[in-house]
């Protein structure tokens, strides 16, 4: 691994972010990344965070049109409430803060504690849980569906809404609409290695796939022998569309897990489009790249988000972050 020692991986990365992105305020000691012009007067603030190892999520999505602040935890470990409390204080303009939280027990608990503490300090907080991963069925007997690729859609669309000056309730409602309309499915072609472990966190023999893998290498639905890109697209979309048949044009995220070459990812995007065409699912926009990664895992995921006119407009709105940029 390209590291110094496992203990400083997150701090080292934050120093690098600070060096490369003068448009961000990076508090390395307290692990908070904030857009330089925060708090933005009159604007609802968006705050997210989670375990590190999914970059550019979340720090790479801080900036105009998306997040106001991000709180990175240790690798694959949710951040602690102190980070979110500090970040919320830094970005709140008085119009409230929306916490965007991926549905993992650790994130849920730490953000919940942070929300209580921040509210004690007079910050108005709303929280939206992202739970798009259809590989894990939503049931009262589990921690519920995991949050994965839809996080990007939520952060982008709610971020644009906040940028337009919408009030907290409206920004929150839009974020919930995105969550309700989004589903994901991921596949691992190799395990990922965490610095702390120094090796793969799970065993995946060469030539085997984990269908429905989570972004921390959590197990999925089943293991299979190698499949073609085409077959993987079919299985992933079958799972996604079965869970939520779309009635609107979709935003498509073809996401790389980290170690899958962009060349292969674009090839996979072609198959995703082919399957969607065959099933007569209209595609409004497609984003291809490594956005919600799992360190050095090889693999991919597909997220579909049903987008009405308003969501589409907010998706197309300008965004200026390290990891996602378009418009003016």
């Amino acid at each position, binding site marked *: 691994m390209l590291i110094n020692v496992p203990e400083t991986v997150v701090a080292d990365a934050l120093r690098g972010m600070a060096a490369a992105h003068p448009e961000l305020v990076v508090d390395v000691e307290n692990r908070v990344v904030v857009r330089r012009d925060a708090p933005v007067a009159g604007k609802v603030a968006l705050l997210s965070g989670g375990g590190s190892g999914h970059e550019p999520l979340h720090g790479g999505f801080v900036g105009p049109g998306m997040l106001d602040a991000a709180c990175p935890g240790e690798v694959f470990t949710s951040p602690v409430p102190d980070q979110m409390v500090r970040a919320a204080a830094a970005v709140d303009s008085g119009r409230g803060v929306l916490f965007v939280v991926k549905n993992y027990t650790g994130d849920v608990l730490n953000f919940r504690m942070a929300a209580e503490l921040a509210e004690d300090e007079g910050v108005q907080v709303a929280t939206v849980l992202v739970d798009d991963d259809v590989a894990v069925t939503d049931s009262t007997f*589990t921690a519920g569906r995991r949050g994965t690729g839809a996080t990007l859609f939520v952060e982008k669309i709610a971020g644009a809404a906040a940028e337009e000056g919408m009030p907290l309730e409206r920004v929150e409602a839009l974020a919930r609409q995105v969550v309700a309309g989004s589903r994901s499915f991921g596949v691992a072609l190799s395990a990922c290695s965490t610095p702390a472990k120094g090796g793969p966190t799970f065993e995946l023999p060469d030539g085997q796939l984990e269908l429905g893998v989570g972004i921390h290498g*959590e197990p999925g639905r089943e293991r299979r022998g190698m499949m073609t890109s085409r077959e993987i697209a079919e299985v992933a979309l079958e799972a996604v569309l079965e869970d939520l048949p779309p009635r609107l044009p979709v935003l498509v995220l073809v996401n790389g897990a980290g170690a899958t070459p962009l060349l292969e990812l674009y090839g996979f995007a072609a198959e995703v489009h082919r399957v969607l065409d065959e099933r007569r699912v209209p595609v409004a926009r497609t984003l291809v790249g490594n956005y919600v990664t799992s360190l050095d895992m090889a693999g991919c995921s597909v997220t579909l988000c049903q987008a009405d006119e308003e969501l589409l407009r907010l998706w197309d709105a300008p965004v200026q972050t390290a990891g996602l940029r378009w418009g003016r």
Partner: protein
Amino acid sequence: MDAVLDGGFVVRWLTAAAGLVEREAERLTELDSAIGDADHGANMQRGFAAVVKTVDTRPPGTPGAVLIAAGRQLISTVGGASGPLYGTLLRRAGKSLGEAPQVTVGELQTALRAGVKSVQELGGSAPGDKTMLDALVPGVEALATSFEAAAGAAEQGARDTVPMLARKGRASYLGERSIGHQDPGATSSALLFAALAEAAR
């Protein structure tokens, strides 16, 4: 069961816990890599190292104050699911002890029971879900007998998670595949009771 425990005892307990966690970190991570995300060892290590630093640098306090400070430190340092849960356990137990400079084992048991209840509420979980509760609950109950009995019961509780189906936390994603593995959080909870027995020896 009328031994009287002071703040120093709680400090010795937490210090012993930090030592055991340090020693067993790799095993905790190994267990977590089977049914979780391979960070439980690092999480506990980071948390208890910080706890020791906190209780060592603070003026010695009441048992309740020490537990509250330790719980806060865990919440501020660990992250993950275990940070808020263990943090709440200790903080709630500390609050329940109030400002008494010395407490009995019975009072400690009552306090820990309150702590465990808060863990259940926060985690939305119950014994049998294959979590830390499966070691915490029998451990706290066996305190009525002795520290050693509590350590044994918690250890047994951790082992009993092996055949369970996980319903909470990250391991729940595995469904049937969680069966046959010991829960990492239950295992670290057993270490906390082993440390308690160690401090009492």
